[in-house]
């Protein structure tokens, strides 16, 4: 039985809960979930500047997430796995898992917590860019990246992969000190055609959750393949609204 620690960028994260559920069902232990506290003014201010006030309203539940979609793909997967919500605290309470709220995953408090637990692997479910002390303390950090590596590194990877004509797949890989430059472990193709950009993102997140659970169940999380020139590909950043609209148009116009 291996010991895992999960991270999350918010107290409500359905992908993190689903992966945690998958780990427990595979007969392993979730020692802790480290959640970056969302209730920090500086963080809220930064997020609003980056993603807009509408995003924050949706996150804290002031606005319905997607009015046009009565049930998302992730919700369907959650109900298949018997998970009722993405609330980390209530899921952790049911399974007797400790929840550790931290200001930042790179804080000494978070690193000390990790050193104390000595996990076999940390599953990254959000919480910002990880610095060397955290990665060193964790030993093995796994991430589900929404695009093909090393071709599409960085943010909005599923969207960029689609737009740039790269392979439409997600990659489970180890996190190292670079941005998505760590050794890949496994890939899963996104076979289904999305309806729009939001749907594409959801498909990628769902594939990432499913593949991560499979990698853990099959014990492949200890294996890695060599990385080929990860720094050669241009890093992707948040897609501009105009380019996102181009992508949406392409997805919808594609036969």
């Amino acid at each position: 039985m291996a010991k895992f620690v999960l991270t999350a960028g918010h107290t409500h994260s359905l992908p993190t809960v689903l992966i945690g559920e998958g780990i427990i069902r595979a007969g392993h232990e979730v020692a802790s979930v480290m959640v970056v506290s969302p209730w920090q003014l500086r963080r809220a201010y930064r997020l609003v500047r980056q993603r807009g006030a509408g995003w924050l309203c949706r996150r804290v539940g002031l606005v319905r997430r997607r009015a046009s979609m009565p049930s998302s793909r992730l919700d369907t997967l959650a109900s298949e796995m018997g998970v009722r919500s993405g609330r980390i605290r209530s899921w952790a309470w049911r399974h007797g898992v400790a929840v550790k709220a931290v200001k930042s995953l790179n804080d000494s408090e978070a690193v000390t917590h990790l050193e104390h637990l000595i996990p076999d692997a940390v599953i990254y479910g959000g919480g910002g860019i990880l610095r060397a002390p955290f990665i060193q303390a964790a030993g093995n950090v796994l991430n589900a990246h929404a695009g093909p590596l090393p071709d599409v590194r960085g943010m909005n990877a599923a969207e960029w992969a689609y737009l740039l004509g790269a392979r439409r797949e997600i990659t489970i890989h180890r996190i190292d000190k670079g941005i998505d430059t760590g050794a890949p472990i496994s890939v899963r193709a996104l076979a289904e055609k999305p309806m729009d950009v939001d749907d594409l993102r959801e498909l990628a997140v769902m594939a990432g959750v499913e593949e991560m659970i499979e990698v853990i169940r099959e014990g492949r999380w200890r294996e890695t393949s060599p990385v080929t020139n990860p720094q050669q590909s241009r890093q992707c950043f948040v897609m501009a609204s105009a380019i996102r609209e181009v992508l949406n148009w392409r997805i919808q116009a594609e036969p």
Partner: protein
Amino acid sequence: MLFGKSYKAERATSVVESKRDVYQAALRRVGEWCLRSERATGGSAAYQLPILGWSKSYPETTGYLIPTLLNVATFTGDNRYREAAERHGRWLLNIQSPEGWWAGGLHPNRSRAPSIFNTGQILKGMNALAAESGCEEWDAAAHRAQAWLLSNMQSEGLWPGGDYRASRTPSYYSEVLWPMAARALETNDGQAAERIRGSLQRIVERRTTEGAFRFWGFDESGFGFTHTIAYTIRGLQEGGLLLDDESIYRAPEAALEKMLRVSELRGGRLPGGFQESWMPDTSFMCLTGNAQTALCLLRMESTQSDDLRVVSGAARMLDAVVDRLPVSGAIAGSRPVWGPYMRGRYPNWAAKYVCDALIELDSRLAREVNEWRSSS
């Protein structure tokens, strides 16, 4: 199914045009502000102050506003912009010295000292009007300006002494060499073209190991506003492209990549300026510098990489300027408006570069849609 497909495509087209609609509306608003900046003399005011109103006309920026107005006229189909460009041109003809130079500073100005940089910028306007109308008068004015600029050039390729605040020719004088290169090619003057190539190479030699250019600011402190940094870059890009010299037009790539990365990490908001060591001043944004850098990125993308990630970076830089556009269409020098670049003022060149960038970005987005449509 044919109906279904075309309906879908039509609906999708309207989706992609929504952000372009925002850009086009912004262009119209900023363009109207440019028209309002015209003074009774025919020149464009350097800037607008919130209470005191318009400043005197500024020959330098009136000159390089001309190609922008001609482009806006073509883009919008509104002839008022073309007429304004011609009036600006006539005013500039009236105040050109017999030797071919234009004076520095606002007009009228007590010390009518000739200015290399201003003459270069006005040359852009004369070149544009000559190409647009084919009239002899614009051509003759451009010819005199070019002759004066060439006659004052040192054997090492740049100009003796400095201009404005620096004691030596700043690197952003690449923006003078660009219209000179265009003129040399237009008149098939191979000798002038070679001298201009040499001058651009002198500026390329100032590149540091980190990709910055020494003397890229108004003074020699090492600090440059993104406005003058983008001048340096654009002049090298355009001058190098005109002369078909890769060692020149690719020289600012490292600097652009650096600025793109910094901007992306800050949600499209470039710091107001950088030291030559790339130490940023994040206390403000230089709005014209943001728009100018977006233009440089779009130019790099169109000539070298064809990569939508670069277009996205440019769009985010421009979004950071136009997403909070006032109803008047005025673009401040700095954000916050009390920032050190053109403190409390709304310069006409900020509006000019925003118009240029909006047209360039819209054209790039239209190309993306059209190419994909024809390929599918």
